[in-house]
């Protein structure tokens, strides 16, 4: 019989046995979207891939973007929790379960994208029957499968003691099937010393094992693109670049998921600001590394200016992919700002008027007006305004220049204005930043796959527009992901009960060695000066 802290019982265990109406509404809404997706998929299956917007030469579209995106998200979990375990970061304890769950579910949804994308999903088995190891697709099948099995194990291992705890602490009115589920999953865990030691050993091994697997998964996904000779894809940086992007978007997803769990289940005491702060630092670092890789990738194309490569970069910088590219860049900058600037802001600066919300609103208004003025037909209103205000006639080009500079100044003004507000709300700030990053990373995958697809060497350039089928299936995939998450945390505690309890024990042991500070002795005061005679 395993006992549990009463607060843990109240917060983590009891909600598992009460189904609120909120849960049923959310679950049925998500199920409806998934059902709609199933219908659309059945339609695509019967009518063929012609239902999508894909064409010649755009053979890969939204499904492939989703695939890379979801597999990227899956790095949240395992990689982060494994790295944090290996390096012994104590603050990881309340968030490992959420992280590992993201991995497992994102992998399921991600692999599903490939099947959706296949013209003949019924021949999936051929990959095994006639698999050729020379093809990167085969590497992918191997590594994703390994990763999936590994992360399921990695999710399950820390779940065993929790299942046993649940088995032993079921409220009397718990349904039989739920009791049975926990009993089966606990596989006879009794919590003996030997069992604990073996479990810890197994988890430690899995953590080390899963890191190279996770790195290999996203590297190999990138190689599906990079081992071709297509301009824009055939780049040796893709492996590390994709891995960095995957971890980056994974942290974003983790932030969103853990905040959702925290809000919905009221776990503010478990998932505290410490987790947000430390994970936020990791997030900023990944943001910087991601920016470094993106810059390195684009610059080498820009400097080369090769005939086939350069049009792809041009299409991103000022061509038809400019909107998605610049939105991505802006989102990443916004995320960077939100994560970093409020942290650096000294408390004393909050009295300065620049750092008020009112000022942010004013700057926002000014920015909007400036943007409008710049875009009025020539000679722009801005020019007229400057001339009438200052009495100096300026050229249109100069007015435009001034307008753009003003716009940037105003945007920085918005950023400064909202910074104290964000500083006071680290959780909200993290979620906003994560949303920016997750959307930005989806766009990043889009900006990698599609410009190359639509600018082939010897096929006339094409335009790709996702159809309703593709959008439906994307929405359904997201819904499926959320639904799995919802159901899982309806059945299992969102915070690993035993790991948190273990953390408390370690913390207590540490706090015992604290010695109260004695007043510095006269001798110490003298020595403090390094024996240097002053004066």
């Amino acid at each position: 019989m395993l006992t549990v802290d009463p607060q843990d019982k109240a917060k983590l265990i009891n909600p598992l046995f009460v189904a609120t109406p909120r849960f049923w509404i959310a679950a049925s809404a998500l199920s409806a979207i998934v059902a709609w997706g199933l219908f659309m998929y059945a339609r695509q299956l019967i009518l063929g891939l012609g239902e999508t917007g894909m064409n010649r030469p755009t053979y890969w579209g939204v499904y492939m973007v989703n695939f890379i995106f979801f597999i990227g998200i899956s790095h949240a979990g395992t990689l982060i929790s494994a790295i944090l375990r290996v390096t012994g970061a104590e603050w990881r304890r309340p968030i490992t379960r959420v992280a590992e769950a993201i991995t497992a579910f994102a992998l399921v949804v991600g692999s599903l994208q490939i099947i959706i994308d296949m013209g003949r999903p019924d021949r999936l088995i051929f990959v095994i029957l006639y698999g050729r190891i020379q093809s990167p697709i085969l590497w992918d099948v191997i590594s994703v499968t390994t990763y999936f099995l590994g992360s399921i194990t990695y999710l399950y291992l820390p779940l065993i003691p929790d299942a046993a705890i649940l088995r032993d602490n079921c409220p009397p009115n718990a349904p039989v099937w739920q009791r049975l589920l926990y009993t089966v999953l606990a596989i006879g865990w009794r919590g003996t010393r030997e069992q604990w030691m073996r479990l810890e050993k197994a988890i430690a091994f899995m953590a080390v094992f899963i890191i190279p697997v996770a790195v290999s998964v996203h590297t190999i996904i990138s190689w599906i693109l990079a081992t071709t000779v297509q301009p824009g894809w055939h780049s040796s940086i893709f492996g590390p670049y994709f891995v960095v992007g995957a971890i980056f978007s994974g942290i974003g997803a983790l932030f969103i998921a853990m905040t959702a769990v925290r809000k919905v289940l009221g776990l503010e005491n478990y998932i505290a600001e410490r987790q947000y702060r430390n994970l936020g630092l990791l997030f900023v670092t990944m943001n910087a590394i991601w920016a470094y890789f993106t810059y390195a990738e684009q610059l080498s194309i820009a400097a080369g200016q090769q005939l086939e490569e350069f049009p792809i970069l041009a299409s991103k910088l000022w061509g038809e992919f400019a909107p998605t590219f610049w939105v991505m860049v802006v989102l990443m900058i916004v995320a960077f700002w939100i994560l970093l600037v409020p942290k650096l802001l000294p408390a004393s600066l909050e009295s300065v008027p620049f750092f008020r919300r009112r000022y942010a609103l004013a700057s926002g208004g000014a920015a909007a007006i400036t943007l409008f003025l710049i875009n009025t037909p020539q000679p722009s209103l801005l020019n007229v305004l400057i001339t009438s205000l200052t009495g100096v006639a300026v050229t249109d080009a100069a007015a435009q220049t001034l307008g753009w500079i003003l716009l940037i100044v105003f945007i920085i003004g918005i950023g400064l204005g909202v910074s104290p507000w964000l500083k006071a709300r680290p959780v909200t700030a993290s979620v906003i930043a994560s949303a920016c990053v997750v959307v930005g990373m989806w766009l990043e995958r889009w900006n990698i796959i599609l410009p190359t697809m639509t600018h082939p060497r010897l096929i006339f350039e094409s335009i790709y527009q996702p159809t309703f089928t593709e959008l439906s299936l994307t929405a359904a995939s997201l819904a499926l992901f959320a639904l799995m998450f919802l159901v899982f945390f309806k059945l299992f505690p969102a915070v690993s009960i035993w790991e948190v309890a273990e953390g408390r024990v370690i913390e207590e042991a540490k706090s015992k060695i604290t010695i109260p500070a004695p007043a510095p002795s006269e001798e110490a005061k003298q020595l403090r000066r390094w024996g240097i005679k002053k004066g």
Partner: protein
Amino acid sequence: MGFGFFYMRWSMVIDLDKCVACQGCSVACRFENNTPVVKPDEAIKGRAIRWNDVFPLPINPKEETGEYPNVKTRYLTRPCMHCENPPCVKVCPVQATFKNEEGIVQQNYARCIGCRFCTVACPYGVRYFNWHEPEWEGSLATHLNPDRLEGDGDLEGPAIRPKGIVEKCTFCIHRLQKARARADSEKRAFRPDEYIPACVQTCTGKARFFGDLDDPNSTVSLLAKSPRAFRVLEDVGTHPKVIYLKEG
């Protein structure tokens, strides 16, 4: 210059069908531009300077070119391509090499610091480094071309190069300058056909053509539209202004 001075876009067309690989262009270039002569042991090390080079294709000696006696050897004669988008200019840290308004990639011997970034960056290998102080044997030293472009920190054209700097084909830019000066002194407008580089002038098979690519009726413009026309290493994005006409 008040005589309707306008910029040309100088270009060369080389008809490989007419080229007999006599290397006359290389010799003419050598004498026109005072290219230093290196000793045989240096030449074998790869230090010979040939602004205009004639060499077999493909260059990789290991690649099969057919079995004797059915050997297929082709030759390529190669001046500087004077690219529209020259990789050498981009990497020069001091603007010792630059593309002028007429599209000629010039080299200033007085400013070059000898870092050899441009030689490494050029995909065509048209840039040469002076490994030693240049020397000419015997009577060669007394027959140097006195032409040079000079002044205001510039030293270009056939001027004697000091050691440790990079030099390259200039489309005989000193001839252009001389032709312009002559037209100027005769108080008339300069015509594009007044100027051709030495290699074009000497070409045995009349394989080389030279002129203004911006003029739609010039010989080079017409030849550039030939279905046989191609440019070397087009895919690296340099947009060369030396256009070849394919063999056969």
